């Protein structure tokens, strides 16, 4: 018998008009449609209370949809409880069973899946190998570090070869350095095995780093979905622009539309950028902090009101007639003093036009 390896039975997930109402009138999720392709990692991102965790728990079957239908693969699982769904989940608190050893934890689900004792054992072992915890099987969860516990939780969910693997803010209990490594590990395993993964987080940087696609949620509904690049470079509205990465929102006037491009004006400074089919008139310009330039002779007049040195770069707060903007500059050797008058301009690419004035 060859050593068992963990493979994938990845399946797509589809939500059709799914709502979840708690009690009488607390709408946690409001008629969302969602499609997660097989083998992709999709992140649900949003501020707390936006319904992302409820959505995740509805995929798991821990919450039942109040209306609408949920499909995993071709199967309608809307009324199926968690036990009967082929979905596993990695919990924020890991939820390792403290009275079982690491190996018993990983084997737990296998014993309910019809595997023989030996088979279950070797599969669990393979799972531990996969997450780099070979030889830790005999320990109790309390004898492991946080990062190791996290990996046990991942192994426990992986060995069942689920159609969909869910992560509920898996990194929030780890320290900052470990986070980067664990998220890379998760992404690597997901891509190697071709798993369908739905991942919940409120950390936009984490979402940008691991996702094939990001679904930004707001007030129980989907605000925008797309690849990390799409969301970062072309947010639909001010909420998404501000939530994904920081964005300075400036009021501007579209003075001319030329085909795909538009020309805007802020305090006499003109700038050309993709028009995104917005009509002429008042609009909002979203500019990432790193896309702000100063030092030219022309541009929007501003004053540096705060300058902070954070090691890899300088962070400035600028004030002017437009209000306040936050900018970062890579040049740390010649910092500008607070009170310096500058002219603010934008990088050639990056700023995005949004509707509304």
């Amino acid at each position: 018998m060859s050593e068992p390896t963990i493979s994938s039975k990845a399946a797509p997930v589809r939500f059709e008009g799914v709502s979840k109402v708690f009690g009488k009138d607390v709408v946690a999720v409001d008629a969302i449609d969602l499609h997660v392709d097989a083998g992709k990692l999709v992140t649900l991102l949003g501020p707390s209370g936006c319904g992302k965790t409820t959505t995740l728990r509805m995929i798991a079957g821990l919450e039942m949809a109040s209306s609408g239908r949920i499909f995993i693969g071709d199967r309608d699982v809307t009324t199926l409880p968690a036990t009967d769904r082929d979905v596993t989940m990695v919990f924020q608190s890991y939820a390792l069973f403290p009275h079982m050893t690491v190996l018993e934890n990983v084997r737990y689900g296998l014993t309910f899946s019809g595997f023989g004792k030996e088979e279950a054992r070797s599969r669990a072992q393979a799972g531990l190998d996969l997450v780099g915890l070979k030889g830790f099987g005999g320990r109790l969860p309390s004898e492991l570090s946080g990062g190791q516990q996290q990996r046990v939780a991942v192994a426990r969910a992986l060995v069942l070869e689920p159609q969909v693997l869910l992560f509920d803010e898996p990194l929030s209990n780890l320290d900052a350095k470990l986070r980067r490594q664990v998220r890379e590990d998760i992404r690597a395993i997901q891509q190697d095995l071709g798993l369908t993964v739905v991942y919940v987080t409120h950390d936009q940087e984490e979402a940008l780093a691991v996702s094939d696609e990001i679904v930004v949620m707001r007030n129980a509904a989907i605000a925008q979905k797309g690849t990390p690049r799409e969301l970062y470079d072309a947010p639909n509205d001010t909420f998404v622009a501000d939530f994904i990465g920081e964005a300075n929102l400036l009021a501007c006037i579209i003075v001319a539309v030329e085909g795909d491009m538009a020309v805007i004006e802020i305090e006499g400074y003109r700038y050309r950028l993709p028009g995104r089919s917005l009509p002429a008139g008042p609009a909002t310009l979203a500019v990432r902090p790193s896309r702000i330039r100063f030092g030219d002779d022309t541009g929007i007049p501003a004053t540096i009101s705060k300058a902070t040195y954070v090691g890899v770069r300088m962070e400035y707060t600028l004030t002017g007639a437009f209000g306040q903007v936050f900018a970062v500059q890579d040049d740390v050797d010649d910092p500008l003093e607070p009170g310096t008058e500058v002219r603010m301009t934008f990088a050639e690419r990056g700023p995005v036009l949004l509707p509304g004035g």
Partner: protein
Amino acid sequence: MVDGGLWSFEWLVDGYPFDEDYAPAAFLIAQGEKTWLAPLLVPLALPLLVVRRPKSDPLFARILILSGALGFGWLIAQGFGIGIRGFTFDWLKALFGEPRIRQFGMGYGAMFSATAFLFLLTQGIAARGAINGDVFVVSAIGGVIAIVTTFVFFPIANMLFAAFVTEDGSYSLTVFAAKFFDDRLWGLGCLWGARCGAAWNSLFLAVIVGFVTTILGLCFALVVTRSGFRYKRAVRALTVLPIITPPFVIGLALILLFGLSGSVTVFLADLFGVQPTRWLYGMPGILIAQTLAFTPIAFLVLIGVVEGVSPSMEEAAQTLRASRWQTFRTVSLPLMRPGLANAFLLGFIESMADFGNPLVLGGNFDVLSTEIFFAIVGAQYDQGRAAVLAMVLLFFTLSAFYAQRAWLGRKSYTTVTGKGDAGVHPLMPTGLSMPVTTIALVWAFFTAVVYGMIVYGSVVELWGVNNSLTFKHYVTAFSVRFEEEGIRWTGAAWDSFWTTITIAAIAAPLTAAVGLVTAYLLTRQNFAGKNAFEFGTMLSFAIPGTVIGVSYILAFNVPPIEITGTGVILVVSFIFRNLPVGVRAGIASMSQLDKSLDESSLTLGANSWQTFRRVILPLLRPAILAALVYSFVRAMTAISAVIFLVSARYDMATSYIIGRVENNDYGLAIAYSTTLIFVMLAAVGLLQVLVGRVQIGRRS
């Protein structure tokens, strides 16, 4: 069929299955006898129609619900429709004719069919999608509701009706009114020298006991947490006392000290040359005994509260320039206020419900709990009066219980958050520390003397008359002879001792099981009517034992559930008397387990039963052990309900001791009590050792 006790299977050989008294229903119906059982066959057969259908088929659910409800309903209907003298209602007689035989108590057959119908019903409800279609949870809810209804609500309701029954068996309000407004109940004679009614006596006593125990409990709690007192561990050991002491033992010890021939009485009489009096019997005696008995309970409540006040609050007050005394008065004490109220109400309820001490020390001071007893067993034999008294008592305790929940439920000031509180409780201000420590020490000394008296009294020949030391009482009670056939238990107490151990041992695991399942449902599941469910299961805490006793003999003396005089009724009464202990232990430790543990087990493919068994139960091992031992010990010390329910065949240790006391055989009674205390001390000690060993790494 329980005539010979549930453990007796003589009916199996005694003409089964053809004798008509024992025969199963199937035979009877085939012979055309007891045709009223025939309709039961229909719902029994009904589910066969859907055996092959899938669970999601709506028909499956509907048929199961239909058959379960029909069968269960019919079983109950025929159980009550046919009384001990034939049909209960006239129209039934008209329909079926006069039956030749009466209803017998329901036995195994009925129990099994009732269970079967119940679970058919719950299966059906689950199949309709209740609680995510979880059969285990729906069945557990159904099961708990069914048994709590049968053994708590049904007897209580039954008792309430008994209060309205006239002598010829009809119902009347005037009878109730006459008994309710009886002078013996509400008389205020004591205000001008005569005697007061039992209700006022009970209320008055309970208020004082609640007050005094709260103050003493607070003193002890303050000494343990906020003083430099060195022997704190010894004071903490006090909390074990009420658990292992049969309630009337304190009363006995007080008699040895202050009774007519008590040592203190005799000593003082000799010293001052005064005539010894019977001052102890009555209000003063009961008050002292109950205060001794229930102070540790108040202490137990208050130590949690006093420790729960976050030290950082007090430290903050001190940094704001409050002196120690000001800190105590303006911060510590107000934060303890809900705990004080809680302790008061507990003392109040315990005093109301206490039966043993008033029985031993009451004299002419009537209280409700003993009056109920005398209404049933005395010459007056008046069920109606007992029921009325029980209602009044129940009203008092339920009001206190309700006040406790309604007022304190949401008002917890417990300020410990689990992290960041590294502070130390400040010591009490000196002006307070002195009196508090003195009171606590004096009372602790008194308690020690009383308990010492119990042990000493058990080895004295005849108290006050012949003070020579002897083991005679132990020999009478617990002698054994070794003969060829083996050991012969010749002592007078062995019978009741083994019965007690057996019954307590049977009741303990059942109590723990029902309690834990209930706790699981309350902490882990959401369902409609959960609050009512919780209230119902915790209610039995507020029902005094005497009330349970009376209602049980009223309800279960006649079919359909005829278990009076058997061991079963004792087991059942213990289960429901001690249920809240199991539920509380379960809730306390289950709420420490993160819910994500269950959820991860569910997503890993285990169903809710497997999750309960493989994740929750193993983690609850300490709680299970505790629930087991405490329900065992409480079953051994119980007296109030037991005294109504014992029979010659199933006598319990406590009621045996009370019997000895009534015969003035104090030596044997005290020797037996001492033995019980040591047995239970051993049980509790064993628990400490076992729980200490079960080391489980909880989520940190």
